[in-house]
């Protein structure tokens, strides 16, 4: 891939001050997203993936939070913008889909009003025109009889429909970047399949880049092009999706992939034990010496506990932060 990335995050640090010390939720994470690309950020709860997403849109309350680093979006550093300029970007050029469709919609406004809000604000549409556009958006996300649904309140819709409304709101202003934070986690599998299909379809039609935050490796395999794996506030591996699944280089990623049972395991007779990652995620309130994963890693040695491994290219387009990750010759 070449050209300027749409979004590039450099050395992002989001720390929270808490009564018992500083919580380093995100500690020096860098990545970039090209226009029209889907990047997945995977990791377990508490690894900082959601905080990363919120930091991009500056949705972290400061204080107690503190964001440092650079977030370049179309040539501007979002961290240096005023609140007023930032508001022009949110919901317009960058929009976000949240996990909980139950709690992220306003219960006392009709869905039409909520979709129209961004349009009135950013594009200065009249109420009537905004409602017309809201109906178009509902049609786009596949809600049946949109003319009547536009007047519904969120409680009148099912979980899957509410998530469709969230997507409609996010896409209303044709954003260049869509951040989806666990968009299907709260949904049933058959509804999840509908929503993932919709997101894929809309991506082709709308052409927005997507940053997909998820813990579900199955979802990653189906929709992402590139993957960033996070652990304890750091990025531990980044690769194209096929490379990551075929050839994970960081022991954490390897453990994660082995810990997921695959559908169809009983047919191939692969009902072996799941691989476990022993131990627990370290507390982010203490400064971690050396590799963040060393305490749970089966191949950790002396050096892992003292020197933090740098994120290095281990093969073309495949970076991992591990002293022992196998290296392939990178074509110059």
């Amino acid at each position, binding site marked *: 891939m070449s050209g300027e990335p749409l979004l590039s995050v450099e050395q992002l640090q989001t720390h929270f001050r808490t009564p018992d010390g500083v919580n380093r939720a995100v500690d020096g994470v860098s990545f970039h997203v090209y226009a029209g690309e889907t990047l997945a950020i995977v990791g377990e709860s508490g690894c900082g993936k959601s905080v990363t997403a919120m930091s991009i849109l500056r949705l972290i309350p400061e204080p107690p939070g503190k964001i440092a680093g650079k977030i370049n979006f179309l040539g501007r550093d979002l961290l240096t913008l005023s609140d007023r300029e930032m508001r022009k970007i949110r919901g317009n050029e960058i929009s976000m889909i949240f996990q909980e469709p139950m709690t992220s919609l306003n219960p006392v406004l009709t869905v039409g009003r909520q979709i129209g809000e961004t349009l009135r604000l950013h594009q200065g549409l009249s109420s009537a025109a905004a409602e017309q556009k809201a109906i178009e958006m509902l049609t786009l996300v596949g809600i049946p009889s949109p003319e009547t649904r536009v007047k519904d309140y969120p409680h009148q819709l099912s979980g899957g429909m509410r998530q469709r409304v969230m997507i409609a709101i996010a896409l209303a202003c044709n954003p260049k970047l869509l951040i989806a934070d666990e968009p299907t986690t709260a949904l*049933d599998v058959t509804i999840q399949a509908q929503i*993932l299909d919709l997101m894929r379809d809309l991506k082709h039609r709308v052409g927005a880049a997507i940053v997909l935050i998820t813990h579900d490796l199955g979802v990653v395999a*189906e929709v992402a092009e590139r993957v960033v794996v996070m652990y304890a506030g750091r990025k531990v591996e980044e690769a194209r999706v096929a490379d990551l699944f075929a050839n994970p280089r960081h022991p954490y990623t390897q453990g994660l992939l082995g810990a997921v049972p695959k559908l169809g395991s009983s047919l191939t007779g692969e009902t072996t034990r799941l691989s476990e990652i022993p131990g627990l995620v370290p507390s982010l309130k203490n400064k971690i010496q050396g590799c963040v994963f060393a305490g749970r890693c089966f191949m950790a040695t002396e050096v892992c506990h003292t020197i933090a491994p740098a994120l290095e290219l281990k093969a073309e387009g495949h970076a991992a932060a591990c002293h022992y990750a196998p290296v392939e010759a990178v074509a110059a």
Partner: protein
Amino acid sequence: MSTPLLQVDDLKKHFPIRGGLFGTVTGQVHAVDGISFSIAKGETLSLVGESGCGKSTVGRAVLQLFPITAGQVVLDGQRIDTLSASSMRPLRQRMQVVFQDPFSSLNPRMRVRDILAEPIRNFGIAKDAADLEARLARLMDTVRLPRDAINRWPHEFSGGQRQRIGIARALAAEPDLIVCDEAVSALDVSVKAQIVNLLQDLQKELGLAMLFISHDLAIVEHMTHRVAVMYLGKIVEVAGKRSLFSAPMHPYTEALLSAVPVPIPGQARTRKILTGDVPSPINPPKGCRFHTRCPYAFDRCRVDEPELRPTGEGHIAACHLHDLPRAQNPLLNAVAA
């Protein structure tokens, strides 16, 4: 075949909806609407389905946590749904439960020791104080927790460790059957694997029967012997796991399996995406309950409710498609293709 450990016949559980000034009953939620299944000693039966299909209600009905509307529950040859609360009590020792949320299912004001000792004391299992201590230590070993953690409080543990405490509590009563109600759903991937392995080991070591309620098909396939698929208060298919995962005999099962994202990138799959949402269990559709979303539904499905009938060795399904000639049955042809 010997008597199954648990036998459930035509179980129904309806919840009344009250409304209006005087709280009159205005309708019924048909949470579970006539299901039957059995679990043999040492067997794992999984109950799968989407939210609202009634799978948790089945678990609670089996445990007699509320009176059932109709049907019967038979534990080891003894009918238990008609028993009084006091005669039920001793039988509760034989059936224990592990809940989904390890944060709300442990009393925050009790130390681990007291949480685990409670069932042992209730059922008078321990002979004396020394026996109790020995049992507590063994329980901690069984669930792979350090023995010295027994004097700590629930909040001092992580989610996975709490779930281990929940499992230890269930094991304390030395039950024959454990109901796991989404016991691993709230856990992170790496911790989930630890608990899944633990449950599998325990089942092998202790010969427990398990009713494993889950929506996660990959985990179910990994854990179970047999699977029952529920949709809107009914069981639509029961089969051994191999048979179910290789050749589903109900269109809902087929769609459910194809909807699961598989962690293998680039794998081209012809996905069967169901349209629409699950209908309300207050007014379930007439005929086959799945006909509103079924890609193969025909006229008969809208009027006539299919019954569970054998479609193969140890495999039953409720679908009219199996009455059609073989060549016209899309489920069988999908298997052949």
